[in-house]
C-alpha cells in the first residue's frame, strides 16, 4: 500500500544543503503496525511529512495505493490527506475554540458530508474512543489523554486506511500514553495500517515492525518479536 523507493529530501537551510532523507526504500503493506524510530535529525519527521502527503520528495518515488504521489496536484493531495490518511500529532493540534465534536467534524466537512450525517459519525467516533460524555467540551476542558483521543477520533473521521501518529505520547504521562497506544493497537487489530514516528524505543515496542533511521538513511528494518500480537 505504501511504497518508498530511493527517496531523498533535500532542504536549503541558508547556504547549507541539508539531506534530511538520503535515499531510502521500504514498503508497508495494508494492516501493518510500523514504528519509525530515530534520534532527532535522523529524518523521521521529514519522512512522516512525505508519507502524510504534507510534503513532496526531492527525488525517488513514493507510491500510495499504487499511485505516484508526485503526479498529484495540490487539490488531489488535500483529498488524499482528507480521506486516506489520519494524522495524530504530538501536540494534538485541536482547534481551541471548537468543541471535541466540532473538531472531529472538520475532516468530514472537507469531505462534503451532510451536516446530520457528519454529526452522527463524529458522535459515534467519540463514543468509540471513550469520550461519549465529553463531546461538547472544548480542548482546554479536557485532559491531555482525552485530547489525544479526540484527535484519534478526528483521524478516523473519513475512515482512512492509514493512521500516521507523530510522537503520539510525547505530551502525555506514561499511563495515559499507554492508553493511547492501546487504542492504536486496537485500531490496528481492526485492520488499520498504523505508522508511529517516535524517538522512544519503549513506544516502538508496541509495533510489529521497527524501521530505524539515522542521518537520513535506514539503519535497520526488523520485525518486532516482542509485540503482543
Amino acid at each position, binding site marked *: 500500500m505504501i511504497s518508498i523507493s530511493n527517496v531523498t529530501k533535500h532542504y536549503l537551510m541558508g547556504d547549507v544543503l541539508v539531506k534530511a532523507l538520503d535515499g531510502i526504500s521500504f514498503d508497508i503493506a495494508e494492516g501493518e503496525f510500523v514504528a519509525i524510530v530515530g534520534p532527532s535529525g535522523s529524518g523521521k519527521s521529514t519522512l512522516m511529512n512525505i508519507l502524510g502527503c504534507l510534503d513532496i520528495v526531492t527525488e525517488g518515488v513514493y507510491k500510495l495505493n499504487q499511485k505516484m504521489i508526485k503526479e498529484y496536484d495540490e487539490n488531489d493531495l*488535500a483529498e488524499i*490527506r482528507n480521506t486516506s490518511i489520519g494524522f495524530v500529532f504530538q501536540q494534538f493540534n485541536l*482547534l481551541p475554540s471548537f468543541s471535541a465534536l466540532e473538531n472531529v467534524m*472538520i475532516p468530514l*466537512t*472537507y469531505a462534503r458530508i451532510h451536516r446530520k450525517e457528519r454529526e452522527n459519525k463524529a458522535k459515534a467516533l467519540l463514543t468509540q474512543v471513550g469520550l461519549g460524555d465529553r463531546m461538547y467540551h472544548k480542548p482546554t476542558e479536557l485532559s491531555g489523554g482525552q485530547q489525544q483521543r479526540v484527535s484519534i477520533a478526528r483521524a478516523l473521521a473519513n475512515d482512512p486506511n492509514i493512521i500516521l501518529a507523530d510522537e503520539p505520547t510525547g505530551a502525555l504521562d506514561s499511563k495515559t500514553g499507554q492508553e493511547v497506544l492501546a487504542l492504536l493497537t486496537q485500531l490496528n487489530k481492526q485492520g488499520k495500517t498504523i505508522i508511529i514516528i517516535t524517538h522512544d524505543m519503549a513506544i516502538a515496542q508496541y509495533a510489529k515492525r521497527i524501521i530505524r533511521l539515522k542521518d537520513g538513511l535506514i539503519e535497520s528494518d526488523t520485525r518486532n518479536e516482542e509485540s503482543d500480537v
Partner: protein
Amino acid sequence: MFKEYFSIAWRSVTSHKVRALLTTLGVVIGVSSVILLLSLGNSAKAEAEKQIRSIGSNLIYVTVSDPIGVLPTIWLDEIKDSAKIAYYSPMVQRPVNYDVNGTNVEVTISGVNEDYDYVSSLTMTSGRFLSSLDMKSNYPVAVVGSKIADSLFGGADPIGQILVINGVPFEIVGEVAARGQSFSGDNDMLVYISYDYALNLFSGRAFMTSYYITSTSESTVNTTLAKVSTYLDSVLPSSSLYRAFSQSQILGIMDTLMSLLTSLLAGIASISLLVGGIGIMNIMLVTVRERTREIGIRKALGAKRSQILFQFLIEAVIITLLGGLIGLGIAYIGAFLISVLSSFTVTIGLDTVALALLFSISIGLIFGIYPANKASQLEPVEALRYE
C-alpha cells in the same frame, strides 16, 4: 458548504468582537456618511422639485436688464397674442420692516397683477385675490400670506385690517394658503399689492421686474418660450438684454447641480470606505498570521486551497457587511434626527441602502482577497510548525 464557511467565519468574528468592531469602524463611518449624504442630497432635490412644481411647471420667467428694465404693456400684449400664453404677471419685490411689540418683522411686498394667482397657482383661504379693478382704481388693497396674520395682527382675522406700507394704508382683502419656503425666502410672509402701486411706492424701477408667463399647457412650454424669445429678439437690440427661461429648465439645472454636489460629497465620504478597506486588509493579514497553525491543521485534515481562501474571504465580508449594517443603522438615526430637529425630511431610499450594502460587501471582497489568498498559499508543513 457555504454554510460551514459562514459558521466558521462567524465564530472567528464573534470570538474577537471588539477587534472586529474596531476593524470595521472605517466601513461604519464610510457607509453611514455616504448613505446620509446621498439621502440628504436626494431629499433636498425632491423637496426643491416639489416646490418648483407647486408653483407650476408651465411657467416661464422673463427678466429684462437695464436700461430698459421693464417691458412696455404693448409688448406684453403682443407677446400674449403671438405666443400661446394663458396668463402673465409682472412682479417686483421689496422687503419692508415692521416693529411688532419691539421685535422686528420683515415682510416682502410683492407687486403683481390680477393674474398672478393663476400664474403662481395660489389658493385663497379667505377673501379674494387682487382684481383687475384693483389695478385700475386708486384704492389701495392688499392680499397677505398665511403667516402675516400671526406676525403682524396677533393671530386676528386679517381681512378688513389696515396694513401701512411706506405711509400708505392698504386694506387687506384676502389671505393666501400656506406655500412654504422657497429659494427667495418665506412665501408665507409675502404681501401682494398692485404692480403699479408697488412701482410708485418704491420709486420707479429701483428693483428689477420679473415677468411670470404661463403657457396654455405643460406640453407647449417650450414652443411658448421660443416664441417669447423670438419676439424679444425682434424688439430688443441685443439678446443679451433679456433672459427667458422655463420652470423645467430651472428644474433641469437644479437637478444637475444637486446631483453633482451630492455625488461630490458622497465621493469624499467614500474615501473613508477606502481607508476602512485598507484597515480590514491589515487586520486580516494579522489574523492569517495568528492562525497559521490553524491553517496548517486544516490543510493536514484535507482542506483545499480554495476552501481556506473562502473561509478567510467570507470572514472579511462578514466584517465589512456588519460594518455596513451598523453604518446603515447610524444613517437611519441621523436621518431621523435631522427630520426631527429641522423642518427638512430626509428619507433613505431602498436603492441607497442596496448601494451601501453592495459597497460594503465589495470592500470585504476586494480587501479580503489578498490576505485570504496568502492564507491559502501557506505550505502545510511550514504552517504546522508555526508557533
